[in-house]
């Protein structure tokens, strides 16, 4: 038996608090706990889906991981291409610079994430230029290769983003992210701004690129059907905390956390013969500035008992690689979506 490789990325107890300041002295009166004690890992070559409703902290968590934000505390252990593992959580800009090329991001909105005054060559070539590929001819060749890789014609290189449709722009964003041969790609809702028929093309492209380039994805999304389609494992977040992590197949077949089950039940199925919405959640997502006591989900949970109101549940491993934060995970029966 060979020793299994350590995960490409391991996040431990990640926290990101945004202070709320009030008054003349701008004193800190509270914290928005956008990400509160999040731990996860991603193995090389796999896709981890990060799911949750808006405001649950999934975008903040992913921004902390690529270090677009400085985490308040916690560890972000990245295995570099040299094979050693470094904790980049508190790295300075200078320390991060050589590591940046290993982690890249694909953004949600293909309209606002491309500079309208730069040509495709400038957009896709900029990361190359920044990282020392100053020879214009070589850069042109590399950009042409990248455009071909994502299914765009290299002749488009001198055009500006406005000449392209949403799906094509998202391809440009993907080409830019892949320019430096990253190992981890964080995709923050990469298809939610696209039309249905174009979504499928983009998802196929992402899957195809993963196989060809051996990429690892952190796939942030609120769309469960998309996540089910492309992820190996899924992590569900609620108000800054992880409530459940399991393999895609398992979490959809047998969710263990009431919130996961409710989330799945809320997704409308594209078949009029199957009625969805058996579980209806009451109320709204609480504010991370003022979360409820105990388990954050207890005011909306139909299974809540006294203990849930006072004690915050600790994440437990119910079965191998199935992590749940719920006091009653063993006793309650929940319905998933039959495959």
């Amino acid at each position, binding site marked *: 038996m060979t020793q299994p490789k350590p995960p490409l990325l391991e996040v431990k107890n990640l926290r990101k608090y945004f202070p709320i300041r009030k008054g003349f002295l701008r004193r800190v009166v509270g914290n928005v706990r956008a990400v509160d004690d999040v731990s996860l890992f991603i193995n090389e070559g796999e896709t981890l889906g990060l799911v949750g*409703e*808006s405001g649950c902290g999934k975008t903040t968590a992913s921004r902390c991981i690529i270090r677009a934000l400085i985490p308040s505390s916690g560890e972000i252990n990245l295995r570099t291409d040299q094979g050693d593992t470094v904790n980049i959580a508190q790295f300075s800009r200078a320390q991060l610079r050589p590591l940046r090329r290993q982690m890249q991001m694909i953004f949600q909105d293909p309209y606002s994430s491309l500079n309208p005054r730069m040509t495709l060559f400038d957009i896709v070539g900029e990361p190359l230029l920044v990282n020392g590929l100053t020879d214009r001819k070589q850069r042109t060749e590399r950009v042409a290769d990248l455009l071909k890789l994502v299914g765009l014609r290299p002749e488009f290189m001198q055009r500006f983003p406005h000449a392209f*449709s949403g*799906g*094509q722009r998202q391809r440009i964003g993907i080409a830019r992210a892949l320019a430096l041969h990253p190992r981890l790609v964080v995709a923050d809702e990469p298809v939610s701004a696209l*039309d*249905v*028929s*174009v*979504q*499928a*093309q983009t*998802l*196929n492209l992402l*899957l*195809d690129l993963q196989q060809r380039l051996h990429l690892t994805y952190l796939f942030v999304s*609120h769309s*469960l*059907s*998309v996540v*089910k*389609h*492309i*992820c190996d494992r899924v992590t569900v977040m609620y108000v800054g905390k992880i409530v459940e992590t399991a393999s*895609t*197949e398992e979490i*959809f077949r047998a969710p263990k956390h009431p919130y996961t089950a*409710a*989330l*799945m*039940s*809320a*997704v*409308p*199925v*594209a*078949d*009029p*013969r199957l*009625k*969805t*919405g058996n579980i*209806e*959640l009451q109320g*709204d*997502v609480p504010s991370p500035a003022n979360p409820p006591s105990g388990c954050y989900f207890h005011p909306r949970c139909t299974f809540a008992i006294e203990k849930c109101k006072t004690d915050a549940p600790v994440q437990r491993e119910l079965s191998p690689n199935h992590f749940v934060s719920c006091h009653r995970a063993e006793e309650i029966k929940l319905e998933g*979506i*039959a*495959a």
Partner: protein
Amino acid sequence: MEFPLDEGTVKAVDGVSLDVYAGQVFGIVGESGCGKSVTMKAILRIIEPPGRISQGKILLQRLNGKDGDTVDLAQMDKNGKEMRDIRGGQIALIPQEPMSSFSPVHTIGDQIMEAIRLHQSVSNKEARRIAEQLLRDVGIPAPEQRLDEYSWQLSGGLRQRAIIAMALSCNPLLLIADEPTTAVDVTTQAQVLRLLRNLQQQRNAAIIFITHDLGVIAQMADYVTVMYLGLVVEQAPVDDIFHNSKHPYTQALLESIPTVNMTPRMNLPTISGTIPHPFNKPKGCPFHPRCSKAIVGKCNLHIPKLKPISEKQAVSCFLYHDEEIA
């Protein structure tokens, strides 16, 4: 519907016919630029200039006055008294964004009461009572307090409910919901959809439900119209659309969405190419450049007419009939 612009005239909606009956949820699906929102604006006569209705009728059967009094909205002065009475009174709109639909400087109560007093001759006090009842009907807790709050004090779900309450304020015959749940989360979406369905059953109003989400359509609509580039491509009861669709576009659209019960990681069947810009709409059937079953010499020259192929289902495709739009 035409939009004469500097670059040329855009025919946003071309020969769309639909019949909506009382008590029906009528779904309109399509991708961006297919003309679904423009159709809705045409019905309400709120198209921004220079857009205009170049041809066609919009017939509304009113309940008041003599029974069976039918009026053509397309003929009316869009700013005239009659149209203003209908707009908000008999046809109400649930807009897409609950964020930007309320004025941030007036309370929720003032805005709902304004709509009530515009269409019904009631006192301020009475209007407030009606508004409070409406908020209670749509499931807003503590309505008497919410009336005096501003829209930005409400969460997305509550704000969407308040918009629905406002749309219902005058007991409309027809409710137009333009992507009412795209801006809210899935769990809130489930709440709003359930609310709309319950209200529709209680009041027997008709709802035109516009969305790009096939899942929502499957769960909400009774009858579905699929649009592509300003043209109706298929009309059928919801079950036929999802299980017996005829038009290649409808079929391709259904295949291309990942569903929760399909094999993961398999390549999704896609529709090749992208939606053309309305300025350079292809000649002939607008879908033919992306269609796998296009008949050369026919689909690229002539536009098929929407024609019934069975009692309930109508398709505009030359695979099923030969009639074209002259």
